[in-house]
């Protein structure tokens, strides 16, 4: 059973989706219950993975060790004979290590919260929940896939459900927002496709190649000696081309010895080919940066957020953006460490630009949801900064920041949803002194805001502090860049506190007198979501080791790529 947990995470919602599609349209309640149950189960399974993930010294930590992944599943999926080009092999390969284990937990949590928030959906219920489950399945798949092709499949696959979720159930300008989201993200994913094609044709799988070339007998276990022999033959150029087994396996792409000797992506192949490596690195980085999103490729995000229904915003900010950060860690940086070092300052500057620009925009927004959306841009900038620092603190901090932002942004968007459900208005200046009408709600809002602006004791603090620590410590980033980033925290405090003051403090007043009767305090479902998330941010803020314990070993391995 334990060996199939990751597959269950992917196929459980997929199966449930088929089930929903088979039921008649009238079963509205059933769709909701099924979705809730399935996402609940997903959360449970991801918690089991969290609890049983081995962290003792010497336990497998993944990254580039092909056999170092926990809960790993690997089956050959497609094998093509490309004639004199060799073979092409695509694996159904799943696994977790420190880089993605927390993101799996986050996905489970946010999808469950999103399912609760989806309870209010009234129109075309069947389609909505079918798409929601499809989205859930592809998000999970994206985080646990270790084969580039599989990753790309899930990465593209989540665009369609997202497009329809925004485009059909969104707000007034939903059509514009959904197509913009699709086009931007597709552009990003094409850059990733470019990198994928270039990479798989340059890299072989030494295991399968050894078998194909007859360097190992059928029944023989392939040990390191055979692998080295295969790789040596490859480097010498004595391995016949039609025996090479090209692979999409990400860990294989991280090993220099697996590159074809004449490939232009070959590391240390001299100065003349460095440009191709740099180009492909930037293609990947840009592709993921659009998803993250990084200024100036972020403009799809505010539109998508403002138009999306609350639960979709929650999923979008809570999980989708993390794929950008995760992709940079797992793919762009791990496969191109030399380029990552070379361009560390550039990447860090992009991160800082996002931090400052996002924060300034958030400060200027009159729409609460837009303010929250821009705060996401700002907070995801810290992720990029942390990753760019290439220090243990920075990278651990970046992963933590992704996890923490997932929880906090989910909370913030639910808060916006709570208000919007009651009055259908999100303008900050249309409310004043809400604390008097909705005291409990205001309490939770304060937790969310303070946690987001980085008050010690909450998870946001840990993420920001560690990424900043990393960037100050880093030898690859100019100190000035890190200093500017600190300004982002100040600005963050400014827009959150200012919003808090304008909307929740002072004398109770709302634009439309009718709203006064509509502004209920929290309903039980809202209590459950906001309370749960608030507890989570507090727990992880007080005990950051709950995350760092799982991530630090793999981060160490990851950083090993950069000193080799």
């Amino acid at each position, binding site marked *: 059973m334990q060996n199939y947990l990751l597959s269950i995470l992917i196929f459980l919602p997929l199966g449930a989706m088929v089930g929903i599609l088979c039921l008649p349209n009238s079963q509205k309640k059933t769709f909701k219950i099924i979705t809730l149950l399935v996402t609940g189960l997903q959360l449970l399974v991801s918690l089991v993975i969290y609890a049983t993930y081995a962290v003792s010294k010497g336990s497998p930590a993944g990254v580039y060790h092909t056999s170092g992944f926990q809960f790993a599943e690997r089956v050959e999926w*497609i094998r093509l004979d490309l004639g004199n080009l060799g073979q092409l092999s695509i694996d159904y390969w799943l696994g977790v290590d420190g880089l993605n284990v927390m993101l799996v937990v986050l996905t489970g949590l946010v999808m469950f919260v999103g399912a609760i928030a989806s309870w209010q959906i009234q129109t075309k219920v069947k389609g909505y929940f079918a798409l929601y489950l499809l989205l859930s399945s592809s998000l999970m798949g994206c985080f646990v896939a270790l084969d580039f092709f599989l990753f790309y*499949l899930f990465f593209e696959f989540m665009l369609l459900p997202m497009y329809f979720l925004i485009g059909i159930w969104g707000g007034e300008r939903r059509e514009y927002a959904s*197509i913009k989201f699709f086009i931007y993200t597709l552009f990003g994913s094409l850059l990733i496709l470019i990198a994928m094609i270039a990479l798989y044709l340059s890299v072989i799988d030494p295991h399968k190649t050894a078998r194909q070339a007859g360097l190992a007998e059928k029944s023989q276990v392939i040990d390191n000696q055979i692998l080295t022999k295969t790789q040596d033959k490859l480097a010498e150029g004595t391995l016949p081309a039609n025996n090479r087994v090209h692979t999409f396996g990400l860990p294989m792409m991280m090993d220099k010895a697996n590159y074809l000797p004449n490939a*232009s992506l070959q590391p240390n192949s001299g100065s003349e080919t460095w440009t191709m490596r740099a180009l492909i690195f930037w293609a990947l980085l840009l592709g993921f940066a659009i998803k993250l999103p990084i200024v100036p490729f972020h403009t799809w995000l505010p539109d998508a957020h403002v138009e999306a229904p609350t639960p979709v915003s929650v999923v979008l900010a809570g999980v989708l953006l993390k794929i950008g950060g995760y992709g940079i860690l797992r793919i762009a940086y791990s496969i191109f460490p030399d380029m990552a070092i070379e361009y560390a300052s550039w990447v860090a500057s992009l991160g800082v630009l996002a931090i400052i620009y996002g924060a300034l925009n958030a400060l200027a927004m009159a729409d609460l949801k837009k303010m929250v959306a821009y705060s996401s841009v700002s907070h995801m900038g810290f992720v990029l900064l942390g990753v760019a620092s290439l220090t243990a603190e920075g990278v651990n901090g970046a992963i933590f920041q992704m996890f923490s932002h997932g929880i906090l942004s989910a909370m913030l968007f639910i808060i916006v949803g709570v208000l919007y459900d009651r009055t259908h208005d999100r303008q900050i200046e249309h409310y004043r002194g809400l604390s008097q009408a909705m005291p409990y709600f205001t309490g939770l809002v304060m937790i969310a805001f303070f946690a987001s602006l980085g008050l010690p004791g909450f998870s946001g603090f840990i993420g920001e502090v560690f990424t900043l620590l990393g960037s100050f410590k880093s030898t690859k980033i100019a100190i000035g860049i890190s200093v500017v980033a600190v300004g982002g925290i100040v600005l963050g405090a400014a827009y959150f506190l200012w919003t808090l003051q304008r909307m929740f403090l002072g004398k109770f007043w709302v634009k439309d007198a009718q709203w006064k009767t509509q502004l209920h305090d929290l309903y039980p479902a809202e209590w459950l979501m906001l309370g749960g998330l608030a507890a989570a941010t507090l727990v992880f803020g007080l005990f950051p080791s709950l995350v760092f314990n799982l991530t630090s070993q793999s981060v160490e391995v990851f950083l090993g790529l950069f000193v080799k």
Partner: protein
Amino acid sequence: MFSKNLVSELSNQLNQILDSLVWVYPELVLAGWFLGILLLDLVWRNLPYRILAGITGLGLGLTAVLVYRQFVDFQPLSGNLFLGMLQLSPAAIYFKFIFLLCIACTVLLAGRSRLFRRTKPPYAEFLALLLAMGLGLHLLAMSVNLLMIYLSLEVVSLSSYILAAFHFNQKASEGSIKYLLFGAFSSGVMLYGMSLLYGFCGTLQITDNQFVTGLAQADGMAVLVAGFLAMAGLLFKISALPFHLWTPDVYQASPTAVVAFFATAPKIAGVLVLWQFSQVLGKIDFWLGNVKVEWTDLLAVLAILTIIFGNFSALWQTQAKRMLAYSAIAHAGFLLIPLVAANELGRQSLFFYLTVYVLMNFGAFWLVELMSQVADYQIKSYEGWGNAYPILGLGFLVVMIALTGLPPTAGFTAKLLIFSALWEAYQSSQNQLLLVLWVVGLLNTVVALYYYLKIPFYLFLRPLPTPPNPILTVRKLDYAWLILLIFPLIFWFFKTDWLMAMLKMLV
């Protein structure tokens, strides 16, 4: 002595021709059926479409059986037919099947099309012309001689000029005349180019060694120009730049079934001959002064222009068939990519792409024709029908996604493979132009998405206007048909190896 030699030579040749006859049974059946249907129509006028289609189907079935016999009996030595006019190869046999499939689909689609039936065109002539086109396509797939290429291309073209006008209204005539004019022009250009090529090397046989050596000795610029001119007719058939101008008008005005056929079978045949052609010309380096130019450079430039032009023009279209016309132009550019790559993977990926392309196109045109009951081909009037007929909408979605080239459809796999082939070619040649084509081709998918997505956008994101006054009838046959066309699109994504294993055998 001399005369004796001549006689023995003659009898030798006659024997060879007689021997070759065994290998063109399918073509003979097609020709016979073509005449038979015309005769039948003379005797019994106004037979219903169903009966005529049935008879045609019988002929297609018989041809398919004979093609299958060829496949079974095929030996490498049996390839060279009619003194080197035709060459039978496994690939030709495979695509003969595909052509027959295309004709069958066209017959079915025409039968299903209300507009086509309402105008009451002469059914017998319609079917007979389709069979004649089939004959031309079969021959084209086997041609290795410039003369034979020209002849079979003309057989295809002449039938298509008439078929294009089969709505018999002003628009259709306009389209058909346009088609005829451009077609005649490109045929002329092609013939001119071919005669130049013949002048350079003294043989019409493109598989002949003399052909290559002759061209290699001639002036580079002259050969390049002559080769380009000789390609004209083929580029016209696949609607690649700069011979694409007929496409939108013909697509818009001609019966959908005919258009679906134009978009697939002649295009495939054209690409196959182009492949042969560029395999030969690719062996030659052309020196223009001090600059070395390769044949593939020319193709690469054409591909880049075609892809960009097709995609960007499609953006502005509001009419489904016109949009598909520009999409067909863009796809012609993609079909040139494996030719540019010109390696083993290129060949396999080309076959894969073509196979998938047939399914995508017939799927798309079938759906467009179904929707024409309510929509008159305007994309805007698709509003909301996806919600009313979810399976139909889903079918549209899958086909459009496949045409765009996104997973999980075989359309993505096809793109992945052709671009892999191109990358490989770039790796070995380090030709920057190939890199440009590679990046331009891949990034154009974004543009493509925008217009392909328009259809699902109107189907799902807009409400159905109330009350929907025309009524859409979708028969069980339609669903069955759609599933047959669309299922492989998804299946071959997950099991690419199965199709590829088959295509690999066509060496």
